[in-house]
């Protein structure tokens, strides 16, 4: 039997008295590309952060590839593109890629990252620091960073935000080719999911 890529069972997440996730269940099989939509503040980002191990659920459990998210071997298989690009502003795009590849222990991550930067219309030999980039360029660099380790699962939070149409197309082409992905976005045009879920009242429901 195939182990689910992500198995979220009965997860609650509260911020003080506010319950953001409520007995939430989600099973994502390997090969699924799931898009999650919902109004602002509905808990989409919180769910991604819980899956990524950045937030502990108040109740319930999360398993990724059958293991605990705290396990380094599980984390190594995940590529994260958070809403904030998570780039070091004083380093160049390629220096960022090189650093994150090394942190993930990916021997060919730097070479793959170089290729990804090119595909996203960025120059890997550009020595300018990322702080001098436009928001769209930073967003593209962040996607290259998330994918350079060739992850089995990609978690992306609003990857098409702040992008012009060509940038969104380039990122969509990459995300549509990943093995398994959970993408939070309002953009229904670019990403082609195998499943579309919507966040309602702290739970996930199949979207129309």
């Amino acid at each position, binding site marked *: 039997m195939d182990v689910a890529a992500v198995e979220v069972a009965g997860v609650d997440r509260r911020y003080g008295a506010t319950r953001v996730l409520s007995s939430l269940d989600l099973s994502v099989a390997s090969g699924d590309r799931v898009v999650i939509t919902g109004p602002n503040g509905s808990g989409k980002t919180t769910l991604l*952060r819980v899956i*990524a*191990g*950045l*937030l*502990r659920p108040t109740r319930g459990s999360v398993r990724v590839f059958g293991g605990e998210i705290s396990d*380094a*071997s599980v*984390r*190594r298989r*995940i590529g*994260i593109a*958070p*809403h*904030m*690009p*998570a*780039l*070091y*502003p*004083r*380093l160049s795009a390629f*220096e960022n890629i090189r*650093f*994150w590849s*090394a*942190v*993930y*222990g990916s021997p060919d991550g730097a070479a793959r990252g170089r290729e990804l930067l090119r595909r996203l219309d960025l120059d890997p030999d550009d020595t300018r*620091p990322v702080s001098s980039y436009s928001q769209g360029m930073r967003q593209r660099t962040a996607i290259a960073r998330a994918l350079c380790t060739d992850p089995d699962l990609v978690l992306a939070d609003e990857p098409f935000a702040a992008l012009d149409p060509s940038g969104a197309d380039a990122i969509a082409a990459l995300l549509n080719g990943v093995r398994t992905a959970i993408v939070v976005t309002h953009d229904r045009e670019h990403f082609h999911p195998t499943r579309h879920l919507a966040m309602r009242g702290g739970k996930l429901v199949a979207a129309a």
Partner: protein
Amino acid sequence: MKRLGWLLWKDTLTEARSLERLGTLVLFAVVTLVTLSFALPPDSTARPLVGAGFVWIAIVFASVLEFRRSFESERKDGTLDGLRASPLDSTLLFVSKALSTFLVVAIVTAALVPLTRLFFGGRTAGIGAAIGIALLGAAGLIAWGTLFGAVVGSSRAADVVLPILLFPLVVPQTIAVVRLLACYLGGVTLGSVSTGWLLLLAFDGLAWGTSVLLFEYVLDE
């Protein structure tokens, strides 16, 4: 070890590309020391002794600014979340942050200690040893500071909370460092020197051991 090397590479490169910030920090420490030097009459025989305390105060103040900044920038840019979500061991992250901070504080210390001789008098021969003592004291201070820098990082009152948490904890280091600096820099013996060394090394060990153990829990959310 390879990952630790990459973490240090990243911090060093970032620091090297923002040298104006390091310069400002050194200037802040020097200005603090110069200001404190006016607290004593120019002909006071107590100057070398008090100078030992004042130089430590200036190092502690400058270090607090560095602890705060170290995690603030990682949080602001979202890179701390990136590191937390990565397969990186939290101990490595702690050690790399502490070593990067140590490098900065070492530069501040190397600039300040010789100036203490200039502003407060004392023995020129003791400057080398005094730098070593201050760095040894800074090692313990940095362990606590890195831990609490991570604790208060996202708090609105971080600027105030960090010294409130940190200063009481570094009292043993303060006593030991000032006692040893007074001896090597000022030529004044304040109690037993060997007790000063013992106190310094013991509390450095305690600071590092406790901070490494607690850091994982501090990072958790």
